[in-house]
């Protein structure tokens, strides 16, 4: 990478989201879990959308799920992504809870091979000492 190469846009952790990025740095995929109604939710927020409880804490997820939908980016809207085209964006249905979703990039998979419903698992993309991104790849064949 040269000095002038455009940098990937970085997440700016805040008080509500810091746990998530602290977790990914340690290769742990965390989401808030409500102790009262026993459900995960994303994005992070100050109260549980199910019951308005504020009694929640980050819990680790398996990082496994299936592709709910996808799109192949054929046009870059930020200079960092211009030389990565085409790349595959997915919405992952996480296995812990119906409808629990996460938007990410699918890697280690040709854009021609992505399908709705295909199993995927998290893979860690080290970006800086502070930020590691949870990307996804096709899941290894389940035992």
């Amino acid at each position, binding site marked *: 990478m040269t000095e002038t190469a455009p940098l990937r846009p970085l997440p700016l952790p805040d008080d509500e989201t810091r746990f998530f990025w602290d977790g990914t740095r340690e290769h742990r995929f965390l989401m808030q879990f409500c102790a009262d109604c026993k459900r995960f939710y994303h994005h992070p927020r100050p109260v549980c959308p199910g019951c308005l409880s504020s009694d929640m804490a980050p819990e680790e997820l398996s990082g496994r799920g299936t592709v709910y939908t996808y799109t192949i980016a054929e046009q870059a809207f930020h200079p960092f992504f211009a030389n990565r085209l085409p790349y595959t964006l997915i919405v992952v249905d996480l296995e812990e809870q119906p409808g629990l979703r996460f938007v990410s990039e699918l890697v280690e998979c040709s854009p021609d091979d992505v399908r*709705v419903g295909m199993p995927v698992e998290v893979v860690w993309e080290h*970006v800086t000492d502070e930020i590691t991104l949870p990307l996804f790849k096709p899941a290894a064949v389940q035992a």
Partner: protein
Amino acid sequence: MTGTGRRVAIVGVGYSTVGRDTGLSLKQLIAQGAQAAMADGGVEQADIDGVAMHAFPPHFVPAYECGALLGLPSLKWTSGSIEGPAFLSAGIHAAAAVASGTADVVLALRPMLRLGATGPTPGASAAGGRQFLEPFGAGRPAQWAGMIKQRMMSEFGWGEEAFGRQMVAQREFAALNPDALLRERITLDDYMNTRYVAKPLRLLDCDYPVDSCGAVIFATEERARDFAQKPVFVESWSFGTSGESDFELAEDMTRTSSFSAAADMWARTSLTPEDVQVAGLYDGFSPITLNWMEALGLCGRGEASDFVAEGNTSLGGRVPVNCDGGATNVGRVHGVNHVAEVVRQLRGTSGDRQRPDAKVGVAANSIAAFTACMLMSAE
């Protein structure tokens, strides 16, 4: 409108100069759009006692400032909206103000300066909810539209032709509309050969960014009888919202809040989906147009592809959709056209693209996080 106060009519519709690189300022566009709607309806400055507008900062002029700009010094009500479902955000606020008795004649505006297809360039750091999108190269509207199109195709077993046929039909309407910007007829092959932006979303699935200001004037039935045009009555309306504010996280991408907005709209009227003869359905991206056909009950869920293929939404069809050509062809006036063309159709003034005997029409804007629809009728 059933159970929501005074009967509301649309008495004037109009546009500023609409085009790319017009050189016009936002205030010049507002003045032109307002004057066009006033001229259409024979509405004078002294008649207007409310202004509603919808726009996003930095391209925003507060409604009270629009009033001052237009020489309307003593308004009873103003509303500036920076969120929600495109023009209908302002349009429903205006209709509700008239229905409630807060104002009698309300000018609703949607001014905008052209943004490229890219929208604003993301910054080096992504804050708030954007931190879960932009670092992955996600978060642009064309990308969530591509995700929705893909989900519709996968869930319903549709090909891209489902969307292409509607875009071909709309260009046919545009060819008949002297005010459309893109008027050259296209074939399904032409559609299938345009480039992808966010596969499967193609360039011809996207609206056409322009500088513009569209305007619609709402009034009480009593006042409407005094103006120049045959009144078009507003029968019902509703907004819809979703449990998730990110379009990418819509719980059910083939339903979304359009279904709840439509259900609420139908609950407030004695009219039914079978009564609809013409429709203006948001086409910022073509999947949204097909989603609304199903949400409004013009066809069943998963049936929009067949509904379009059978010709129902085309010229001469049972429920022609986007008879001005849609925002894909008249330019991104951001929902005003979906109301304005239905009004013209219900007046019977749409010329070569007129749906014969149109008495009931519907307009609908946006998808997923925020939606709205409005049912209209003529006597």
